[in-house]
């Protein structure tokens, strides 16, 4: 037992004992994550920029803009003409752009079904919702124009009637009140969790690389010549990198919680447990790969080969719900998915009745992978290609 603790302690000391080690393994991850939090989740009142060009002289174009201004999530920015609008979209100056064509109102009154154009560089949740909102307004405008057309005869009459109806619409006598008990998870939380997971996986890889270096430089064999047993070295190494990982998670959480005062929306202890469980799985993945590929340089590269695709599949970058069905099924095999799900459950006030499932799956994954990967932690097999 003493031997195990000694090896563990030395492993921790070696990784983060020096000033450089402490900065690059503890301080830097915390800072990077803090930066990310302040970027995505810090301001809750974030507005998406929508650019527009209104070529319409009539009442309808004006009405569309006034309806969109009512929506708090959007910040409207005007562009001079269509070319400027397209250019702004390509330069990513906003999530989406709206172009109301000339003579839109006249077209509506004449029942020609004029079309509004929406531009986007990449489809995102926000841009899709925006397009839906605009088509809702435009559909209603078409109906209103048809109603006005059926009731009045002369053109001038129509125009004034149309204006009067829209005036009335803008009073919003029929509307809704939204009551929000904060039951759903916060928008930024999934992004932050996703990035944390990706980051954590990369960090764990570095600490496993350290063990690999020990093998390559035959340090492990020398350790073995001392009165320690093979399993003591294995457990010591494992506990050492595990402790480093725990410290990293703690640092990250503390940076977010106390320095940035970011409200994770779930008990910090639960978040900590979820991240720790995930870290165990990624240690398993990293050591399994290291066991399969003996050249440490290649092992590092192979890890990347695993890291990015699994993060994409597991929903670190976008919600799983938008993916096609077969990919949703494939996501079940990826630990990231279960970690994110656990965070989701915990942040919506779920209890251990629901939380046990993702935890059990993460635990199982960790157990299987660590068993396979434990070979690299032991000194008995020295077969390393330098």
């Amino acid at each position, binding site marked *: 037992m003493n031997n195990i603790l000694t090896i563990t302690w030395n492993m921790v000391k070696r990784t983060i004992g020096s000033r450089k080690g402490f900065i690059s393994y503890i301080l830097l991850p915390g800072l990077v994550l803090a930066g990310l939090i302040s970027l995505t989740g810090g301001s809750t009142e974030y507005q998406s920029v929508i650019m527009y060009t209104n070529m319409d002289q009539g009442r309808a174009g004006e009405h569309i803009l006034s309806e969109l201004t009512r929506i708090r999530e959007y910040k409207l920015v005007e562009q001079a003409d269509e070319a400027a609008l397209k250019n702004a979209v*390509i330069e990513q100056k906003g999530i989406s752009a709206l172009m109301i064509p000339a003579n839109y109102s006249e077209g509506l009154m004449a029942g020609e079904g004029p079309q509004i154009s929406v531009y*986007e560089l990449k489809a995102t949740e926000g841009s899709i919702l925006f397009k839906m909102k605009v088509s809702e307004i435009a559909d209603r405008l078409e109906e209103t124009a048809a109603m006005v057309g059926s009731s009045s005869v002369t053109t001038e009459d129509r125009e004034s009637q149309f204006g009067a109806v829209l005036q009335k619409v803008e009073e919003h006598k029929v509307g809704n009140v939204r009551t929000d008990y904060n039951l759903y998870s916060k928008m930024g939380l999934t992004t932050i969790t996703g990035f944390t997971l990706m980051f954590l996986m990369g960090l764990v890889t570095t600490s496993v690389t350290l063990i690999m270096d020990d093998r390559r430089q035959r340090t492990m064999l020398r350790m073995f010549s001392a009165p320690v047993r093979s399993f003591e070295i294995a457990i010591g190494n494992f506990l050492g990198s595990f402790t480093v990982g725990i410290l990293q998670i703690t640092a990250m959480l503390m940076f977010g919680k106390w320095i940035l005062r970011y409200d994770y929306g779930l008990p910090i202890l639960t978040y900590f447990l979820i991240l720790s469980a995930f870290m165990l799985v990624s240690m398993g993945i990293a050591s399994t790969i290291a066991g399969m590929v003996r050249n440490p340089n290649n092992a590092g590269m192979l890890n990347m080969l695993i890291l990015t695709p699994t993060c994409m599949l597991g929903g670190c*970058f976008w919600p799983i719900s938008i*993916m096609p069905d077969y990919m949703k099924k494939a996501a079940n095999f990826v630990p990231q998915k279960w970690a994110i799900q656990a965070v989701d459950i915990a942040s919506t006030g779920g209890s251990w009745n629901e939380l046990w499932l993702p935890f059990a799956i993460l635990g199982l994954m960790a157990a299987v992978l660590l068993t396979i990967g434990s070979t690299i932690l032991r000194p008995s097999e020295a077969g390393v290609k330098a």
Partner: protein
Amino acid sequence: MNIWTIMIYELRRLFRSRSMVLNQFLLPLVLIFLLGSALSGVVGIEETLKIEPVRVGVVSLSEGDAEPSNMIKSFLDTPEIKEIIIPFEVNGRENVVSGLRSGKYGYAVIVPPDFDQNVLSGKTAELEFIMGKESSENVIAGTVFDNFLNRINYNQAAAVTLGPAVLLAAAPSADLKPSVMLGKLSEEGSTYTASQFYAASMLLMFLLYSGMTVCTSLFNERESRTLFRINSMPVKGSQLFIGKILGIGLVTILQGAVIILITHWLFGVDWGNRPGLLALTCILMIIAAMTLSIIVAMFLKTAASARSLIATLTVIMTFSSGGMFPLPDSWVNSVGAFTINHWAMQAILRMILHSELSQIIPKLLMLALISFVLFLAAFISYRKVGYHE
């Protein structure tokens, strides 16, 4: 001649390494495929997206014998709505809130006593929505009920201004074409999809990653003590260095070409109408990536730290140029502008969109300037530090 030998040897060594081949050639294709198919539901035809119905608790606050709202009832009875919304009649506000908390309902709507009456008489009428536990269900149910109220609002306005008869007179217009269309960003009418955006951003990310190979190769020689032996041969340090860089550069050019061609043939990514300029952009990007990693390799002591610095820089640059997540717009155009990716991305996007030459050139010039500065810096740092034991 020596340069040539070293380059050939470097190429041979790279192609024999299985993980290199996997990483440089397979991984980008896997990532582009994943991105393309994961987002295909969003990007392509919307019919493929199957919407799971949301369970909505409906509370009628009507007192005594008053009829519950007919408008809501008939709305919930329409076939299209039935597919998306499963209504449950609930008694009392407290019950529906506790149902929401336990996840029994995904959304709740509370109907005030005289809703129908108020609407018909042109008075203010409001429904109360209570949001549930699932963000996506909140969006779906919220949109459905918002649109319902919106329609009533327009109808009420029309009825008040034009008289109630119009509501009956106006036949639902036969839909000619959708009232909103997705505009074409490109000049010559070629289609553009999000998969193109991600293909470009991934291509750039992998060209940047090639810098890691430079670090590995430079440090390997030192760590396995072969640099010492090579130095004892009639080979100049600079020849060895240039040979290595040329070898890796060639592989990276090949990598870029493979990514572009295979995404074009397999996934149908359209890379625009200027293959020459596209190649130039890639080569400038490769020069920038290589020289950047040479600088890093010169000043760091171990291969591991150099590699992790390159990896971090690559991820940060791809991330802040908006290539991974959608970022706040202000961020992309302020911090993002300091990344190499930003300029290359803008240039490639404009090629994909068939923009005019005058819009592409400034971005390319900027990229060339960055590459030149990095090249100079790499040259100076090589002169200062050198490549030897």
